[in-house]
C-alpha cells in the first residue's frame, strides 16, 4: 500500500512538471495580453506531432525535433497573434471565440495529416524504467521533468532580469502606463506569444516522450492549462508549478485508488473546490505582488 502511494505521488509530481510547462505558455500570454488562448493545447499538440514526424521518418530521438517544433509552432503562434491583434473591441471575450475556433481548425488539420491513431515514442531509451528504491519512472518522464524545471527557471530569469521580460511584466501590470514609458505593447505581446509558443514546443515534445497523444489531446491540454493557471492565481511561475503538481498528484492518486476513467473528473473537482473556497487561486495574493 505504501509503495502504491509513493509511486502515485512520484508519478504525480513528474507529470505535474510537464503540466506546468504546458500551462506556462497560456499563463504568459494571459499575463501579457489578458487573453486566454484556447488554442494553446493544440499548439502543444502540434509540437508533439512534430516529434512523432521526426522520430517516425528519421528514427532519431524525439528531442531532435526541437528546432522543427520551434519553427512550426513559432509560425503558428505568430499567425495566431496577428489574428488576435486584429480584434479591436472586447478583446478578452472575442479572443476566446477566435482562439477556440483556431484550436478546432488545428485539431482537424492534425487529424487530416496524421490520422486519429494514438501516438507515442518508440524510443527504448526513453521508455526504459529507472528505479529509485521502491518507485519507478520512465527515463522519458525524468528527462521531461528536468527539462520543465530548467525551462521554468529560464522563464523566471527572463521575466525577472531581462529588459523584455520586465517590459512583459510592465505591460501586464498596466498597458497604458507602459506605453507612456516608451514601450511598444504590440512588440511585447508578439514576443510573449512567441515565448509561449516556444514553451508549447518543448511541452509538446516532452509530452510525446512520456505519454500518448492523439488529435483530441489538444483540447484536454488547454483545459488542464486553464485549471492550473486558475489554481496558481495568475501571474506566478512558482504558483503555476505548484498548481500543476497538485493537479498531477490529484490525477495520479485518482488513477491509482479509483479509476483512470475518473482522472479528468478529479481535476475538474479540484478546480471547482479551489474556485469555491479560494476564488483568487491558491497563490493569488502572492501573484498580485509578482
Amino acid at each position, binding site marked *: 500500500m505504501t509503495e502504491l502511494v509513493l509511486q502515485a505521488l512520484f508519478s504525480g509530481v513528474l507529470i505535474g512538471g510537464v503540466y506546468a510547462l504546458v500551462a506556462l505558455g497560456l499563463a504568459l500570454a494571459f499575463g501579457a495580453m489578458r487573453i486566454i488562448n484556447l488554442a494553446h493545447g493544440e499548439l502543444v499538440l502540434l509540437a508533439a506531432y512534430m516529434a512523432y514526424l521526426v522520430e517516425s521518418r528519421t528514427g532519431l530521438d524525439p528531442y531532435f525535433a526541437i528546432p522543427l517544433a520551434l519553427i512550426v509552432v513559432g509560425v503558428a503562434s505568430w499567425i495566431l497573434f496577428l489574428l488576435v491583434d486584429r480584434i479591436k473591441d472586447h478583446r478578452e471575450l472575442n479572443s476566446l471565440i477566435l482562439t477556440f475556433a483556431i484550436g478546432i481548425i488545428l485539431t482537424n488539420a492534425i487529424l487530416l495529416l496524421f490520422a486519429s491513431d494514438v501516438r507515442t515514442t518508440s524510443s527504448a531509451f526513453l521508455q526504459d524504467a529507472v528505479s529509485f528504491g521502491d518507485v519507478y519512472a520512465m527515463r522519458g518522464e525524468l528527462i521531461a521533468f528536468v527539462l520543465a524545471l530548467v525551462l521554468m527557471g529560464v522563464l523566471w530569469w527572463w521575466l525577472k532580469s531581462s*529588459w523584455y521580460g*520586465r*517590459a512583459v*511584466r*510592465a505591460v*501586464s*501590470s*498596466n498597458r*497604458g*502606463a*507602459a*506605453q*507612456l*514609458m*516608451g*514601450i*511598444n*505593447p504590440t512588440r511585447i505581446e508578439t514576443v510573449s506569444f512567441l515565448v509561449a509558443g516556444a514553451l508549447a514546443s518543448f511541452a509538446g515534445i516532452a509530452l510525446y516522450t512520456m505519454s500518448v497523444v492523439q488529435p483530441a489531446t489538444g483540447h484536454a491540454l488547454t483545459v488542464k492549462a486553464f485549471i492550473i493557471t486558475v489554481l496558481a492565481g495568475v*501571474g506566478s511561475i512558482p504558483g503555476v508549478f505548484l498548481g500543476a503538481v497538485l493537479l498531477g498528484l490529484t490525477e495520479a492518486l485518482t488513477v491509482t485508488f479509483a479509476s483512470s476513467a475518473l482522472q479528468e473528473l478529479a481535476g475538474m473537482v479540484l478546480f471547482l473546490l479551489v474556485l469555491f473556497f479560494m476564488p483568487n487561486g491558491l497563490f493569488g495574493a502572492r501573484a*498580485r*505582488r*509578482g
Partner: protein
Amino acid sequence: MLKLDAVTVRFGGLTALSDVSFEIPQGEILGLVGPNGAGKTTLFNSISGLVKARGQITFDGKNVIRLPLHRRARVGIGRTFQIPQPMHHLSVRENLAVAQVFGAGRYDPKRIDEILTVMELSHKADADAASALALQELKRLEIAKALATEPKLLLLDEVLAGLESNAKRTFMLKLRELHRLFGLTIVIVEHDIETISELCTRAVVLNFGQLIADGTPAEVFANPAVMESYTGTAHA
C-alpha cells in the same frame, strides 16, 4: 518647443476640444486651468497620444499628431496621471529602469539613483512592488517614472490634488527643483488659483473645450470670463 494648432477632439457628437491653439516655449512652467469638463485632461491625452486629435501638434519642430503613444514618449513627451498609474508588479527601481530603457533608449543607473533621491524614493527603491506604496509615494513615483524617460516636456495632471497645504507646498518646491535640475518645460493641470499664481509663469484657461484666456496668472485670473467659468457666475 510645443505648438498646438487648431487641435480638435471629438467623441461621437461631443466636441471635447475645439480649435485649441497656443505655443509653449522651452523652459516655461505653464498652468492649464479650467473647470471640470473643460478639456484639460483631453488636451493632455491628445498631446501624449492617448486620444486621436485633429489639427497639428508640433514638438521640437516635428508634427507628432500621428505618432503612437510609445513613440511620443520616446521623442521627449512625459506625462503623469491624476490617479497614479504605477506598473504594480515591478519594484520602484524597475519602474524607473524600464521607463529609462524603453523611453530614453539607454540604461543609466546613476541617473535613476539621482531621480530616486530627488523624488525621495531611495528607501523604497528595491523593497517591494510599487503597489505597496502610500498615495504620496505613488504620486512621487508617477513623476519619477516620467522623469526616467528623460522628457523635454513634462505634462503633470493634477499632481497636487488631494494633498493638504503643507504637503502641497513641499511638492511645489519639488517641482521647482525638478524644473531647475532637469531643464524641463512643464505644463501642469491644477484647480487651485494660488498654486498656479505661485508656480507658473503663464496660464492657459480652457472652458467647454475652448481656449478662453492666455497670459500671466495675474492677467488670467483678473479676466471676468475666466472667473465666470470658474464660479459659474459673472465676476463683479
